[in-house]
């Protein structure tokens, strides 16, 4: 796991964002048990309290759930994961289009560039 964080935003929010991507990309599979707070915080090198707060937020969003005594698991709700995925894609595209607009590029030109830079 690679987690590089920016110092000027709450760390727990950045961990939430990072773990969301791990889940929607399938790095953490549906129904899979996630490592303990202690293990996760050592891996990511943050305070366990901060990790706990991030996991609570993900739990509130429904992306993970707690099985009493068993630990925390990734949701089995495929439609929820799809929904979150779409939200993130939309958010990233919004940022992208706004940046392009600032540079003064038209939608037509964007298409041209996308075609040219296609991987």
């Amino acid at each position, binding site marked *: 796991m690679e987690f590089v964080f920016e110092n000027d935003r709450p760390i727990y*929010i950045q961990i939430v964002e990072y773990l969301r991507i791990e889940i929607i990309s399938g790095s953490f599979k549906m129904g899979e048990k996630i490592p303990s707070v202690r293990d996760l915080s050592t891996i990511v090198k943050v305070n366990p309290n901060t990790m706990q707060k991030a996991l609570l937020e993900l739990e509130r969003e429904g992306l993970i759930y707690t099985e009493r005594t068993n630990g925390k698991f990734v949701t089995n709700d495929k439609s929820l994961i799809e929904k979150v995925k779409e939200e993130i894609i939309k958010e990233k595209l919004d940022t992208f289009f706004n940046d392009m607009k600032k540079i003064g590029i038209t939608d037509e030109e964007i298409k041209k560039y996308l075609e040219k830079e296609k991987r």
Partner: protein
Amino acid sequence: MMLLECKNLCKDFDGKKVLKNINLSIGRGKIVGILGKNGMGKTTLIKLINDLLTPTSGEVLINGKKPGVESKKAISFLPERTYLDKGMTINEVLKFFVEFYDNFNLERAYKLLEDLSLDKEQKIIKMSKGMQEKLQLVLVMSRDADLYILDEPLGGVDPATRDYILDTILSNFREGASIIITTHLIADIERILDEVVFIDKGEIALVSSADELRDKTKLSIDEEFRRLFKC
């Protein structure tokens, strides 16, 4: 009950007020950074908490009690400067710690030393400065204490050693215990802090949750500190 409380704590040296009216409460399960420039009173505060200095006025309470034999059991302290007899081998130091502290966890110390692959028959004086710093940290973190106080644990260490120190702090951070870290190297340590206390000219200038401060200022703790206390 708070793990640590400082109430109207003041310390003068030759009539000069080094600490003025410090009020501070630290609960359990927290990593707290006491941050300030050099000479602002950080180490004086730490020494008062450790009963190495007597307050001019005000008081320090550890688990609700004044400093004494019990607070010395509850606190594991890493001072800025080494106190180990450098002529001793690692094994001799370990034996010393086992005899000296009831709550010294030899098993944990062995495990941590194994990770460093140090020869336990080696004399401390023969070890590099970085290694000596790591050994000291291992000794301090191997006690089952309520409060770990680390005074400038990152002073003068290389980036790899710094990572080792942060990892060791995090992986030995036991449930219910708290850690106080003083430093002026804020950027290196801010990601592991729950709470920050800014000390300036002997006074507490700010107490906040680390993430709340970032959210409020849209700056890192390091940037906010520099902004507030520009020379």
